């Protein structure tokens, strides 16, 4: 049983990490959600895996599942939802401001131009230049 759970956690972690490293916002959000799942299950498993025990006080029962990790994970699930929601809206905002969904918020005039993941060096340099010029303007 423990081996199975450990393997599932590992699979979720690996997929989550891989997606987190992608260059587009949507897969990154999915990746973070997967990572949150992995962390939640991991935390829950720290209270050990108990089958068929109540978490509710019942005099007729002999043992209990550990309630503390459950309480912690319960709030963690809700918070993870809040985080996911905020992130995806941030991604929408970035798309509406920048016109593309690249995680680095590259300023491109046309969305189509971003279809190539590895940008030609020229355009990347141009973005950096534009960014620096923007910074210098902001300085008094």
């Amino acid at each position, binding site marked *: 049983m423990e081996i199975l759970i450990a393997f599932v956690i590992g699979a979720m972690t690996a*997929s989550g990490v891989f*997606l987190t490293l992608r260059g587009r916002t949507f897969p990154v959000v999915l990746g973070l959600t997967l990572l949150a799942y992995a962390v939640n299950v991991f935390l829950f498993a720290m209270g050990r895996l108990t089958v068929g025990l109540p978490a509710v006080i019942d005099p007729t029962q002999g043992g209990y599942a550990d309630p503390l990790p459950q309480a912690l994970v319960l709030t963690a699930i809700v918070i993870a939802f809040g985080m996911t929601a905020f992130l995806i809206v941030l991604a929408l905002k970035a798309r509406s401001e920048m016109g593309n969904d690249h995680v680095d918020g590259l300023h491109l005039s046309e969305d189509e131009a971003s279809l190539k993941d590895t940008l030609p060096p020229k355009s990347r340099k141009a973005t950096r230049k534009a960014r620096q010029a923007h910074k210098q303007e902001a300085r008094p």
Partner: protein
Amino acid sequence: MNLLAFNLPLVVLLPFFGAALAAWASRFNRLGAAYASGLITLLALALLMPSAPLPFHDQTLIQSWSWVPDLGLYFAFRLDGLSLLFALLILIIGLLIIIYARYYLSQKDCMGRFFAYLLMFMGSMLGIVLSENVIQLVIFWELTSITSFLLISYWQHRKEARQGARMALAITGAGGLALLGGVILLGEMVGSYQLTHILAAGDLIRAHDWYLPALVLILLGVFTKSAQFPFHFWLPHAMAAPTPVSAYLHSATMVKAGIFLLARFFPALSGTFEWTLLVGGAGLITLLIGAYTALFKHDLKGLLAYSTISHLGLITLLFGFGTPLAAVAAIFHIINHATFKASLFMVAGIVDHETGTRDMRRLGGLIHYMPHTATLAMVAAAAMAGVPLLNGFLSKEMLFDQAVIASSYSHWALLLPVLVTIAGLLSVAYSVRFIKDTFLGQPKSELLHTPHEPPRFMKIPVDILVVVCLAVGVLPALTVSPILETAVAATLQTDVPDFSLAIWHGFNAPLMMSIAALIGGVALFLKRDALFRFYQLHEHIDAKSYFQSSLNALLKLAKGVTESFDKGSLQHASAWVIGTSLLAGIIGFWHYSGPLIGDTPVQSVDTLTVIVGLLGALAAITTAIWHRKRLVSLIVLGAVGLVIAIGFVKFSAPDLALTQLSVEVVTIVLLLLALYFLPQASPKEINRLRLWRDGLLAAASGIGATLLTLSVLTRDFDSISAYFLENSVSGGGGTNVVNVILVDFRGFDTLGEIVVLALAGLGIYSLLQGMTLPAPKNDLHGRLWNPDKHPLILQTLTRLLLPLMLMVAVFVFLRGHNLPGGGFIAGLIASVALIVQYLANGIDWTRHRLQVDMHWVIGLGLLIAIATGLVMMALGYPFLTSAFRHIHWPVVGDFELASAIAFDLGVFLVVVGSTVLSLVQLGRLSHSSHAESTWKS
């Protein structure tokens, strides 16, 4: 009501409140800020007065409250002679400065900001001198660094003001850090951070191994603050501040804070060879460098700045001697310097104000235009030069006396009387220059307009200070003697040595030195041309340029290091973070010598569980593999969430299963809504190297997580949950331990979490406000969307289901304390019920029927949750303690009513509010985008 029980903290905190008051008052009347500040200062003085007599009766007033006692931190205040002297200087000179500044500032300057900063600075200074706890002292010390930064940079549009302020902050801030280190060493040596204990433990401290490090660290703080060599260079650059600020910071306050600390720790640290060498040495060098440089400055304030450095060096030198009589002289000179230097700065400000320049090469003959001011300046400058019948003379005599006494200790010390006489000679020379070049001689014609006397109230502060100089100089025994004696008693913490404050001590060595300095000084001034030529040879050597270049080099290094990691790419940064944590994990495993897998036997597993588990793992991996087809990937992600929910059921966690299930629904709906506005597919990645790198990182993370989980799960463990299981029914009144933990044992955590959730909801709302995105007309494969937006069957069914779902939510909510359920789960179920209505019937239809503003729901939820906790506090229990009682309801039967249910209601409302708010706002985005696109077509 006994005022003596709590007046000191009031004196310290009053100026901080006054700062807000002054800033507020200036909105109505430009001068309101000045009057408010004056009033606050008078009030602080009045509050201090009742306890002022105590130090004169050898009593130390201590007012102390526990703050963080485990760290030795107390909110503690102390009033003895030394604190009283400094507090009076700060408040009285502060009051004079406020009067002066009211006339000094021009129409363009913002009065409220100026006086708010000034009052905050005053409060911080008072905090330093009135602190009993040394950590608290350091806190106020840092506050003076920050507030003086604000004051020096008051004219933010001037480059030199910003630079000067930054330099002052960098140097005094760094010194503050050193001081904190020194004070902590001191506290650990003594075992207490209260001054009373530290001052009584001088012998223990001096014999301790840590004495030298503590001394060096504390002196670093002192020297940076009091502009002692080699940290003296920030002070002249701080002259870019408005003149009232310079007058305040460099006469009675800021730079005197370091000197105050020398006096404060005198009984604990002085009397060793190291003390004499470090303190005396720095003092002597500063005394000479300051006096020498002051002579050549053409700027009035520049001259005064270097003169201040020199006089601070003089005081430090006196403390360095380490004898009780030298301490008397030092404290006496603190008073004298504060009075004559404050008045001289004010004079410089008046000259600047009336003529438009402070350059002595362009000034001259001002006595013809402003005889009153010129007279004041002459008296104050004479006091600075040490002319008899003025206060500066008396303390300078005492310095000469001490130097003569010290010269008998060693051969090298024979130089001392000579060196201090040279310093005296230089100070006479620059004082003469200050008067001669500004007020005497022929008026220069190049001034912008004819100068005249300043407004009467601008002179009154100077009048008062100059009268004090004279009174102390002529009648020392009648004026300054009592307060000086009390201050010395508090500094030494022993009996005061015999000293006589007389003008005439007979023809002795100090008098000869004074005469030599006076005559030599005037002669040097008359023959100064050669010296000026010599100075020009090395004028370019300025510590500022070294400071700037080393600062620039440091910043460049920091920037280089940062840029080598952060290339402005999130992928790059994430890879670094993940790689580093992997490395840390690997190192951790590597250094662990025991077996990786523990010896607790694993539980047996049935086939169904294996299948479901593997399905979950497969779904997770598929999500990653198919990530370019976003919709598919999202659907598979939903499957992972469902498997987890099933897992929670299997492993006896019904609450978690319910939560996971409802969150899963909401999350997927949300992501679907968002995906509508994002590209439906990710572009193909060309960079294979990056794919390999990411794959490797991912695989390693997965293996690491698996091994970590396995190694933990195969070992025995001790849970702290026994406490919760035992006390859940008796203490929390509920049998669902998970819920009792959430709303009672760890209620404060839950409160924090619903606050986060509320913030996320509101943040999403405001992010989406006014945003429009182009809505795609067809899906990935070019198919048009279904024109039937709200299918009839779905509409009818959901409308029928709504009451049922809401009832389930209420049911789950009510039983939550005793059976699986509770506010979080009920909130999510209710949210799903509402969201389904929006989805099936459209936003307009639902909004028309559900006229509830979700902002209010969130706010109400938070209010209820906090109020539940506060009610318990009002009843005398800790925050969020729960009370419960069993009551009998007709029909329903026995029912338990716990106050925790009110808290849970707050949780419920926040969850419903945030979830519905964010989803509906997102839905509205699609609504408006669609409306726009149809309108366009």
